């Protein structure tokens, strides 16, 4: 039965086109990752492609290691040296670009310094690193917590309206317990992989949602329902086969897409840096995650999200008998939160942190301070979401089963 149900979905022209679109989205994402990496050469010109990746990797590998105070002092001195060169001091943009190119090996650390030594938690000064001196190196990690505490405890600041005392304490604790010093390495592969992952995952959710929309509704569209429901297993095993087909279609196509995307991207950009903390790219994130852990969370969350979108679409299609209406469900789930976010309402904004679209863009949301006081403990949204949506997805299974099997024929 399962084989035939899968053939119904994938054998149709719409199913084939959808699968091709998904493959195209994966290919496009891989290309975006590769084309995002650029190397500024000694003439100040940008290079992209495999040679650029190799040069950047080589430059950043020179600084790989534990980012402790002596290493920070070394980097700050190197930065001061490069900032003092005629090229960096020049008014000519091309000369500035040449100086920029020399800093590419230490650029990730300079970016973190721009946050760590800024005047406020909510500020970012691109040139801040140029004014940091070696004797400030010891403040690098403490500043992260200090600035955040100052923001949280500022009685006139926005944090007062956003968090209660338990949530503030949770955030401070998360900051204080982050393992330091960081281990730094070339992390461009993981950063690009994770940065572009929402595109692949959201496309997968939309396409798989569309493909799921016909699993139940097409029985009505093709007027095959009278025969289907009058058979021995038409109201039990055959319905389970449909649900199974939805599950396996999402599982196989999602994991194939995500794994191909990940392996190709990391294969081209490098697997290095998986053990580095995500704070290298997302300085303010309160989650204690290495890049590889962020990847696991992103793809597993994406899978749960896609499965939830597909099952919800199937339930709507069983209820409405319309594949067209049901196929709009993933779009609504994805774009309504964006609309609600524009309302600038604190309560709505907090609720949005628990919407299913979050699961499709976990890496992007690691930087956001969605924290929830559950009464007995405080958790970040990304600690809650996977468990919450596993439960909701599982709850949809009996719902759609009952909805479809008991539906009378018109």
């Amino acid at each position, binding site marked *: *039965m399962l084989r*035939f149900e899968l*053939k*119904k979905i994938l*054998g*149709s022209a719409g199913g084939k086109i959808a699968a091709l679109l998904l493959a195209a989205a994966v290919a496009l994402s891989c290309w975006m990752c590769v084309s995002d990496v650029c190397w500024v050469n000694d003439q100040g010109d940008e290079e992209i492609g495999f040679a650029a990746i190799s040069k950047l990797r080589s430059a950043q590998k020179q600084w790989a290691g534990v980012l402790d105070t002596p290493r920070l002092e070394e980097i700050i001195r190197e930065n001061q040296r490069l900032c003092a060169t005629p090229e960096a001091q020049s008014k000519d943009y091309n000369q500035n670009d040449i100086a920029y190119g020399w800093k590419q090996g230490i650029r990730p650390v300079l970016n973190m310094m721009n946050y760590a030594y800024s005047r406020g938690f909510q500020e970012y000064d691109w040139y801040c690193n140029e004014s940091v001196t070696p004797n400030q190196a010891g403040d690098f990690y403490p500043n992260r917590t200090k600035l955040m505490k100052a923001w949280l405890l500022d009685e006139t600041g926005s944090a007062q309206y956003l968090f209660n005392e338990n949530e503030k304490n949770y955030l401070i604790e998360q900051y204080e317990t982050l393992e330091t010093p960081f281990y730094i390495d070339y992390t461009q592969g993981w950063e690009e992989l994770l940065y572009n992952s929402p595109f692949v995952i959201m496309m997968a959710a939309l396409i798989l949602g569309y493909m799921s929309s016909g699993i139940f509704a097409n*029985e009505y569209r*093709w*007027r*095959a*329902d*009278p*025969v*289907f*429901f*009058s*058979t*021995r*297993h*038409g*109201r*039990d*095993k*055959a319905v389970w*086969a449909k649900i199974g087909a939805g599950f396996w279609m999402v599982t196989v196509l999602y994991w194939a897409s995500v794994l191909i995307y990940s392996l190709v991207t990391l294969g081209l950009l490098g697997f290095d840096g998986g053990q580095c903390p995500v704070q290298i790219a997302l300085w303010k994130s309160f989650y204690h995650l290495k890049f590889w852990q962020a990847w696991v969370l992103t793809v597993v969350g994406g899978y749960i999200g896609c499965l939830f979108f597909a099952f919800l679409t199937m339930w709507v299609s069983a209820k409405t008998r319309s594949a067209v209406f049901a196929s709009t469900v993933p779009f609504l789930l994805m774009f309504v939160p964006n609309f609600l976010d524009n309302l600038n309402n604190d309560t709505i904004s907090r609720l949005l942190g628990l919407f299913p679209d979050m699961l499709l863009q976990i890496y992007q949301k690691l930087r956001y301070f969605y924290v929830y006081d559950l009464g007995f403990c405080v958790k970040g949204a990304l600690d809650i979401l996977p468990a919450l949506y596993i439960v909701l997805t599982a709850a949809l299974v009996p719902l759609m089963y009952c909805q479809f099997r008991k539906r*009378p*024929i018109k």
Partner: protein
Amino acid sequence: MELTITNLTKEFSGTRAVDSVNETLTRGVYGLLGVNGAGKTTLMRMLTTLLHPSSGSITWDGEDIFAMEGRFRSILGYLPQEFGFYPNFTVEEYLQYIASIKGLRPAVAKQRVKELLHQVGLSKARSKKMKNLSGGMKRRAGIAQAMLNDPKLLILDEPTAGLDPNERIRFRNLISELAEDRIVLLSTHIVSDVEYIAGKIFLMKDGRIAVSGTAPELTAAMPERVWVCQVSKARIDAYLKALKVSNVKTTPEGAELRIVSAEQPTDDAVQVVPTLEDVFLCYFGQRGGEADAAV
């Protein structure tokens, strides 16, 4: 093997589509005749458990068919009026899929599909996509899927609708072949479909079984008589409006009319032996005389 229908009623928004039907069916072929909208499809959908009755019951050998759930559906074969299928499946794939949801084991299903494809004359078209079949071939695939589980109760709703006369005759013969050792209920608004193959015929009107019996019983019990008379061309329309005319045969002098009437319509009208078509016309009037109903 007994299907018992007791006080079966189905209402839709206050309208009774099926109204207090009582019948008992045992082995044999039954014809359900009625004009469109008489309630035939609603009755059949209740018999196939697709619709729940508003009141009344249907039992199979004394057991409620809705309580039997899958056990009842395992002895049921159903060809609906609008036979839907999966357009991208080949005929063979379609039958194998239906066999799987009918609970046939794969090895049995394979053999059964092969046999039925041969029986309905679709062996050569086994690899054709369902969407590419002609109307007659689709109907034959439909009867094959209904027969996959060798059903004890075979329900065919308007199986010959839309078929040309040759296909219709072929289909009737096929149903006769398949009718052994089972109950076959054949719904149609085409009189000739049931005239030759049905043992007992139910005439359904406004949701009720108006009259039932074998073809000879129905013709014998007809409350009106059948007449043949010659009329001039100028008077044909007047007769058609005033009387139940079951046939108009044009002649050089005018037309020979076949009229169902309690009274002799003209002085020269000659009484003839009634047919089932005359019975149909007697009960349903001119509504029964739709374009494809006279075959």
